[in-house]
């Protein structure tokens, strides 16, 4: 047991190094704080249970997209029997979530996800006014 000091200091160093990101998070008080998502004030239920939407909203959106664009399915019947018009801007955003910035973006940036390209075409109705203003002030040349 002559190397006790060496072994234990090495072990301690190893554990400290491995758990360093955790300590850093605790010190910065970030690791336990979730994304500051603004939930819809007027609605209680989404088109699918919350756990499913958290894990698989992208799959649901792709199903909606394929259905609406390619298979003439313009309405979606939710798990609770409610019928919704299939529309990202006019149903998801306008009816419930309100703002892309305060809902989608906050969680996406929390998990360091590069923004999905939905919004290249689909519009965030809350930010359209801002887009138009910047378009008029910016140069007209491409």
């Amino acid at each position, binding site marked *: 047991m002559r190397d006790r000091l060496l072994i234990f200091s090495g072990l301690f160093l190893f554990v400290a190094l491995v758990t360093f990101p955790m300590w850093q998070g605790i010190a910065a008080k970030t690791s336990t704080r979730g994304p500051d998502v603004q939930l819809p004030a007027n609605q209680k239920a989404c088109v699918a249970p919350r756990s499913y939407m958290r894990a698989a909203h992208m799959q649901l959106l792709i199903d909606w997209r394929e259905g609406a*664009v*390619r298979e*003439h399915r313009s309405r979606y019947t939710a798990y609770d029997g409610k019928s919704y018009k299939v529309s990202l*801007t006019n149903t998801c955003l*306008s009816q419930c979530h309100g703002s892309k910035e305060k809902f989608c973006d906050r969680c996406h940036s929390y998990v360091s996800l590069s923004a999905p390209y939905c919004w290249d*075409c689909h519009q965030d*109705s809350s930010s*359209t006014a801002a*887009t138009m203003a910047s378009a008029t002030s910016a140069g007209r040349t491409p």
Partner: protein
Amino acid sequence: MKITRKAFLRIAGGSVLAAGAGKLVKAISDVAPPPAAVSGSKSTAEGGRATTQRWGMAIDFEKCRKGCDDCIRACRLAHNVPRIPDSAHEVKWIWEEPYEKVFPSQRTDYGRQDLAGSQLPVLCNHCADPPCVRVCPTQATWKRDDGIVMMDYHRCIGCRYCMVACPYGSRSFNWFDPRPYIKPLNSQLPTRTKGVVEKCNFCEERLADGLLPACVEACPQKALVFGNLNDKDSAVRQTLRARYAVQRQPELGTEPSVFYLV
């Protein structure tokens, strides 16, 4: 009670046979449903969207007024179509072309002189045999069972094969973000993005709601007649019966769904 090996095998074999027979009966009934169910589902389940439908349009050249662009403006509003001044980057859904370009084979020196140089509204012909659909490598454009040649902008990779294939120039490429050129921008509708091809969709979203296409509704002269080409009593078929109509370049065999009454 003790089960002998022989009895066990007999019971197991009998169970497998029973399960298999059940599956077989189900498979047979799926393949050949009772005739009543077939005739019932055809009309109700598809909600009148059977393959008997083919949307088409007739454009009455006599009624179309010179200098009026109500149809074009209505289309821009209905679909967030940008207005790009540079003709090389233009995005066109319904637009005007001179008569000689719309009907290049009918250009003669001794034809109807009043038609020479006049502008005609042109749009995607929603061909029965669309060459653009045939060349699309990603099936981003396809022909629906109601005759509309649709675009799936999600799937378009911007290769522009369809633009080369279309003999009518009905397709436009977005060389840059079109949003700054859309005025006024309707925030309820999507726009297109840089790098996709777009074109007229016969207002399929309005048709789904039972409305006429925006251009047809906007025309003050009722020069655009829209309807189901496969229904012999539809407005468009009645118009086509009464008047002499031509298609754009029918010799190409694309069978356009847009007719011009001359």
